[in-house]
């Protein structure tokens, strides 16, 4: 488990908001599910890497669908809306590899994304009664890409690692079905689609040092676009809810 500054900042923000709004009714949720990703830009970048090599590595993982996790903190407003904050995270990656008697080559590309934002629920007493709701999320995408290249010949290994960052914005419309389990606990089945707008990966601390695909001359971007399907378990902190 690693503690990083971003995590601390988000945690702090939530604590501040919950503290500030502690006098209001709110519900906190924890959930997760599965996500699909486009990642065409990075896939093209992988193909460029393959072309530059004198041998032909095989792509074993190619940005497959993966799990995501989320945390929601929602506040109830007029009967048909809930508003709050959400943060989700997910990751994916790729591996190109080839090995024979003389050596081994591995090129790993792991991308992680954290997506803090706001969430709106529209429905008939969302979270109060069982029923379908329309959800809408929007926020900032914070992506990181870690590249590891390892060439081992005759037992001697040459490694190269790169860490890159990217930032964008996202929109995630969807629907959910909320079922009230008891006075405190709600269970939501969520279905949404992620739309992202990204600028492209760059060196940490130097936004001008962008990663460009030498073939297409386009920046290499994270493309988290895809389906999000999962469940969320909510716990209500509203005292008066029956």
């Amino acid at each position, binding site marked *: *488990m*690693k*503690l990083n500054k971003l*995590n601390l900042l*988000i*945690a702090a923000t*939530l*604590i501040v908001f*919950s*503290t500030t709004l*502690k006098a209001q009714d709110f519900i*906190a949720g*924890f959930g*997760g599910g599965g996500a699909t990703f486009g990642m065409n830009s990075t896939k093209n970048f992988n193909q460029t890497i393959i072309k530059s090599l*004198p*041998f032909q*590595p*095989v792509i*074993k*993982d190619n940005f497959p669908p*993966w*799990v995501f*996790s989320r*945390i929601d903190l929602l506040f109830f407003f007029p009967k048909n809306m809930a508003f709050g904050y959400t*943060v989700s*995270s997910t*990751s*994916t*990656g*790729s*591996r190109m*590899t*080839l*090995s*024979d*008697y*003389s*050596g*081994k*080559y591995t090129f*790993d*590309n*792991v*991308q*992680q994304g*954290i997506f803090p934002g706001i969430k709106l629920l529209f429905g008939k007493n969302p979270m109060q009664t069982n029923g379908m709701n329309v959800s809408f999320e929007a926020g900032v995408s914070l992506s990181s890409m870690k590249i590891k290249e390892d*060439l081992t*010949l*005759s037992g001697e290994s040459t490694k190269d690692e790169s860490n890159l960052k990217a930032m964008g914005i996202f929109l995630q419309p969807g629907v959910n079905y909320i079922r009230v389990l008891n006075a405190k606990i709600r269970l939501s089945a969520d279905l949404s689609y992620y739309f992202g707008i990204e600028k492209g990966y760059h060196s940490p601390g130097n936004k001008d040092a962008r990663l460009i695909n030498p073939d297409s001359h386009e920046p290499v971007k994270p493309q988290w676009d895809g389906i999000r399907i999962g469940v969320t378990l909510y716990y209500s902190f509203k005292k008066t809810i029956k």
Partner: protein
Amino acid sequence: MKQIYLGSLVFILFILQSCTFNPKGEEFVTINPTGSIPNIEINLNLATDTIFVPFNQKVTFAYGLHGDKVNWAQFVINGVVQNNRDFAYDVVDYSWTFNDAPGKIYPMELKIFTRSQTGSIADKMGAEGFLISRKWIVKITNEDKMASHVIKTDFVNGRLRVEWEKYKGVDFINYKLYKSMPYGIPTSYLLATINSSTVTSFIDTTYHGELSGYYIVNNDRYSGFGPQIQGPLPVIRSENAANGDLVLKWDKPPYYNNLKSYRISLKDRYGSMQQITELPIASGESYMVPNPLFGHSYEFYITPVALSDNHYSTPFLTAFLSTYTTATYGLTIPKYTSILSGEEPVSYLLNDNSSVILQFDHRTFTTTRTIKYKEIVSQFFLSQNCKYMITRVNINQKIYLEDLTDSTKSKSINISSSFPQIQYTASVSNSGTGIMINNKTAVMYDYINERKLAEILLPGSGSYYSKISGSGNFFFMLTTNSSEYYQYKDNQMVLLQTETNQGIDQIMKVEYLPGNNEKLVRVYNNRLEVVDCNTWTIEKKWIFPAVIQNAYNVDIKSGKMLLCEKTKLILFDVMNGTREEVATIDDFGYMDWTFFYKYGQLLWGKGAALKL
């Protein structure tokens, strides 16, 4: 509330850090690690293991890489790596000016790391391969040692091949092969330019026996030398076929594929060359001389004619590229300057300055007897019955009597005591008598008994020809001014007739025919007469249709006389007057006195005969 916030914080961190994607998977490929050495050609233009580098000149050794087959290459001179480039560059080179004194030696090594061609990762990354090494010795030398010399010339498939030394240096540009011909036009010219250092031979398609020298110039700078070659020219020889036809033969020269034809010529009486024919090479190496002249000494020449421009003018071509041979038309017989024959089918031959008389049998066409003397024979005479021979040698007053049927009776006769200063003898009769003459007297002499039988004073002077009949009863003498006919009877020499020896009465030949009534055949330049010796009357008289140039002999058996009419040899039947042309001679052939007819054969003193 504190617990809620703390729990929320821990929970949030856990959620954010868990479930990170971790790539997995392996792809192992089975490959044969043996590999194969690529076919690398180390082309440094260095043809030998010892490289000669000129003193104080910049030299560049360069090796071009072959892209994906070679990982890297480097030069190592004297153990020190001079240059090192990897396969990303196209050439590995090393340039230097060698200032060391001539004779200094450096070891040089070129190392090449080739691809292994296994297809493995290491192979494709250039980390796996074969190390090839090639070594040379670099020797500093003076510039004059850099030249390539021509080392050999030989003939291959009908053409001349020239070989030379490989260029010993670096920076090869070309070989230029020059050909020099002292008598050619021009005397030296560029024959070929060769742009590969490993090519060290050249086929000269122009060489055709001319005196030629070849030399190489390397890189337009270093000039070598080489041997001269000449010929071999086709050596012409003459042969006579079984029937006497004259055939010229020669061997095919080893450069036959450079030739167009053979030119056959002869030298005429004025010394000028006259072409007879030009034979294509494909026609072979022999030629039958058409319509040869009997009694002519030929000098035939053969000149090979080249396919290409030979840089020779025609006079030079003939002068320097010809061989010749002498030849005569007819079958070969012994040479002679004097020949006599009688009733038998044999003739006796004497050559100039010889002490040997040969007996030639016409039936076998071979020499069957030799009569040898100690002294040089100056004259000899034969009786008509071929029993007796009188021989005069170059010792004055000494003659020999040969009994050809019984050699025990042969003897030498010293006649000085009985007849001083003998100058001529007039043949010999069947009974061994003959005429001996000095300027003033003629003596009928008995050689067997060595005694004088009769003597007369000669009316004329300077007798230089005489003849006695087979019986010995008649004889003829030709003096400066007259022709005189005599009869020997009752020990007396009686004058029968005298003629002036001038104009149409100038005698050319006299012969006696045997028989109970001996006959005299006498030939003038416009007529022939047959005289009955007993009655001394002209039995036959034949007028020649044209003036004859010479009369040679009468064949006693056939009664035919050999005459010369212009360029024709004629057989004239003295009894019935018929004539037959038997051979053609050259314009001056009639002046040759050695033509002879006997037993159906035509003979010539230079050693040829025709069977008619």
